């Protein structure tokens, strides 16, 4: 499918810079797709493009705990990013059918989890589960002929912390919602960020029959990302837009 995949391992960054890097790489991507691997420091809540931050997130609690908040370019739900690996796959060549394109990329993520000894399966539209529990959520957007899909692969889950920073639709149902999430979401116990990073690179290589090219962000991407982090993803205008 691809002869090469450019691999960017950008380490741990604040939320605004992480989302800015995804957009900057998306703007700059050539015919060679990009696999970006990253984490979040400090921990962060990201909300979906269509969500209302004020309705979904306890902003004061986030401030107290030092948790970043950012709106994503992609739809879907609110996520607490803490103990996980996040990936982005950015490409100019992709199936036009949305369902098919999720499966196309999620197949590589499923392979990467199974390579570590699990039995993961893809559940459309955008989830990956192991033994009935969600271990990965994925979301994509398409802009100017470029597809960006990013997703989390959970290494561990702190549901109590998650619901200290996320609001629930009904306070009366808080305990039930937390219990449900504990039963439905899980991390990949015993696996590290580095285990997952190594596995996901190998799986994208195999899935797309490509040579991996380890690379660094270029000057253009860095300066564009810094601008976007300050003026877009770090701004109230973007984060509180809905």
């Amino acid at each position: 499918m691809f002869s090469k995949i450019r691999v960017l391992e950008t380490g741990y960054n604040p939320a605004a810079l992480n989302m800015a890097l995804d957009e900057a790489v998306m703007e700059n991507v050539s015919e060679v797709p990009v696999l970006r691997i990253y984490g979040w420091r400090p921990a962060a809540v990201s909300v979906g493009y269509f969500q209302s931050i004020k309705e979904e997130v306890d902003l004061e609690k986030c401030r107290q705990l030092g948790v970043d908040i950012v709106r994503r370019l992609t739809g879907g739900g609110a996520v607490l990013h803490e103990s996980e690996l996040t990936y982005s796959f950015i490409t100019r060549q992709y199936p036009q059918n949305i369902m098919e394109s999720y499966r196309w990329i999620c197949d590589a993520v499923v392979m990467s989890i199974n390579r570590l000894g699990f039995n993961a399966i893809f559940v459309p539209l955008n989830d990956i589960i192991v033994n009935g529990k969600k271990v990965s959520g994925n979301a994509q957007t398409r802009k100017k002929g470029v597809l960006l899909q990013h997703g989390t692969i959970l290494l561990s889950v702190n549901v109590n912390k998650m619901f200290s920073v996320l609001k629930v639709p009904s306070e009366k149902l808080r305990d039930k919602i937390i219990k449900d999430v504990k039963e439905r979401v899980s991390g990949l116990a015993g696996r590290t960020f580095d285990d997952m990073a190594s596995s996901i690179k190998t799986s994208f290589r195999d899935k797309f029959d490509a040579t991996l090219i380890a690379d660094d962000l270029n000057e253009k991407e860095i300066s564009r990302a810094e601008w976007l982090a300050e003026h877009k993803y770090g701004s109230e205008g973007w984060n509180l837009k809905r």
Partner: protein
Amino acid sequence: MRKGHNIHKSQKLIRVMLEYEETDNTIISITIAGDFFLYPEEVLETLEANLIGTKLERDSLKQEIDKCLKNSEAFGFDSVSLTDAILGCAR
């Protein structure tokens, strides 16, 4: 003018914040939020703008929503569930 707010559980959660004119039952402003997916994303802003002035009646709402979503793909809601979510604000 009256304000309404509704949380509607379809396949995904839809939140609607609405201002409407009681005298003629038309929408003055509307914000639709939720954990759904919509491609292209900008369609939602067009939809919100086009719903202004629409009567809070099932047929009018559904017709306007269908028209706006015609060339898009939504996952997690459809025109029926979104119509229900909007009408729920005025109950």
